């Protein structure tokens, strides 16, 4: 059997793929956080809860109404986005004039409420969700078996992230959004409805979290607690990458997922903590983050 540093190649690549899949979720969540932060100047602590909602909703659709994963791919993010719009209109709107820390505190409270309610309804044990039939099984690549579904998650994430980047950097709507980030009153003076744009931005951001939840449902365990631990890692990812650049947050997310996968192979005790340690290192060397600019 072929080995690298005493580790079988197949196992090594297996963990790397798993790491990359985790990295996909980091990337999608940190992308959403960055978009929301850019427009609303708020760190959305409830992001993990929205991700969890996406996954649980996917499970609910299948187990209650027998609606397939494919429909969930559309319905769950939409539901999460609509819920996000309500939250923005009802609560966040009132906080744009005060210190951004209040936004963090409010969304922290929301996360506790949402998670607590879901835990009350569904308990803490996992809710089983199977891989869609088309993607069951694995591809034989010669040196390893690649589970089809994992490959699909990576491809889907790359498509979604690239589309988001394209919309923001290359389209008219994106230009409005970027302008709104820079100078809201001026953009409003040009006749663009800035409050509606803010609501839309929040909806897109949390919709991305919901979509990540749908993608996670078949491969990670669906449970009301799945979001809260993830969000703290994503915060570390955001600190490492900096929220200044969209491509930056995507690359940082994917890269850290890979590093986490590698750690699992070579020193599994540290796999929970490696992202935080990298964050500490980055803070020592480049306090503004890898892709960040000092404000």
């Amino acid at each position, binding site marked *: 059997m072929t080995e690298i540093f005493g580790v079988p190649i197949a196992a090594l690549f297996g963990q790397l793929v798993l790491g990359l899949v985790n990295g996909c979720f980091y990337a999608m969540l940190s992308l959403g956080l960055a978009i929301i932060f850019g427009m609303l100047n708020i760190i959305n602590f409830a992001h993990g809860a929205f991700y969890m909602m996406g996954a649980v909703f996917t499970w609910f659709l299948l187990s209650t109404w027998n609606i397939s994963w494919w429909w969930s791919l559309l319905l769950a993010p939409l539901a999460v986005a609509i819920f996000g719009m309500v939250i923005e209109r009802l609560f966040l709107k009132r906080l744009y004039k005060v210190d951004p820390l209040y936004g*963090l505190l409010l969304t922290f*409270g929301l996360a*506790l409420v949402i998670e607590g309610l879901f835990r*009350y309804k569904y308990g803490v044990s996992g809710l089983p969700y199977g891989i869609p039939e088309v993607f069951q099984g694995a591809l034989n690549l010669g040196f390893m078996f690649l589970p089809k579904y994992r490959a699909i998650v990576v491809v889907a994430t790359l498509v979604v992230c690239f589309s988001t980047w394209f919309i923001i950097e290359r389209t008219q709507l994106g230009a409005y959004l970027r302008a709104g980030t820079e100078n809201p009153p001026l953009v409003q003076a040009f006749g663009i409805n800035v409050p509606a744009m803010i609501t839309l931005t929040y909806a897109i951001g949390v919709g991305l979290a919901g979509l990540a939840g749908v993608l996670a449902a078949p491969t990670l365990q669906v449970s009301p607690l799945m979001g809260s631990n993830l969000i703290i890692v994503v*915060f570390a990812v*955001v600190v490492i990458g900096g929220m200044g650049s969209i491509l930056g947050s995507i690359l940082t997310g994917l890269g850290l997922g890979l590093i986490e996968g590698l750690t699992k192979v070579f020193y599994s005790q540290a796999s929970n903590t490696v992202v*935080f340690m990298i964050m500490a290192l980055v*803070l020592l060397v480049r306090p503004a983050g890898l892709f960040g600019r000092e404000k």
Partner: protein
Amino acid sequence: MTRAQTRYLGYAVLLVLGLLAPLVVYPVFLMNALCFALFACAFNLLLGYTGLLSFGHAAFFGTAAYVTGYSAKVLGLSTGLAILAGTAGALVLGIIFGGLSIRRQGIYFAMITLALSQLIFFFYLQASFTGGEDGLQAIPRGRLLWVINLENDRTLYYVVFAIFLFGFLLIHRTIHSPFGQVMKAIRENEPRAISLGYDVNKYKMVAFVLSAALAGLAGATNAIVFTFVTLTDVDWHTSGDVVLMTLLGGMGSIFGPVVGAFSIVTLESKLSDKVGSLVSVIIGAIFVICVLLFRRGIVGEVQGLYRRVVGSQP
């Protein structure tokens, strides 16, 4: 009455209440509330007076608790020394956390402290000396200075009350010192404080380490009171709780965190057997209501009301 007189009247009332309380209320509950009150006061030193929101203060509380528990139970240190060791442990951790996190500001600061505390959480989850998921059990309360038997709840209460007063007065002294004035200047307008020639990071660092050490003192005392330490003490929910206590009571006011801590500890102890897992929903809802409706907290609102009724005093 001038404001200073009102304040000293408040202190006198607090002192008498504190001395008489264990005659009426279950001492262990009071001790727990006092520990969290000190914890929240230490946290408020950072949030309310320096404007830094740390979302990882449970790391200091829990670290001190583990160090205290370990030194009292395994190393056989006397209770007083064990509490000191725990506080010192939190202080050292505070230097590390502070050194890393004050490099970024505002929202990033909160995320960094949260992530670092999660690192500590996973470390304690895996380390052998913490007992992992089971925690450290059966920590001896022992004797203070070889003579005072702490097994008696009422005796221990007065020791805990003395520790609380020590921490509270230290914070009070800090806030009303020239150092405290600079802290407030940083909170109000950091660039201005820099332009006046203050080494802002040095001030933030001292405030951070002091806050961490006092949070540690609270955690160490709490470990002795309950005679056990579990992962809950380092969990991010505990960090969230202390943020809420300060927010609810009123940040930037010296009594606010005490009021907030007593409210939340009472609420959690009354509700947990009635609604079970819905406690976190209620905690979250209080967060939302505080942020939306009364950002000054209970004490801040009451003071505002008082001033409106009596008219502002010089």
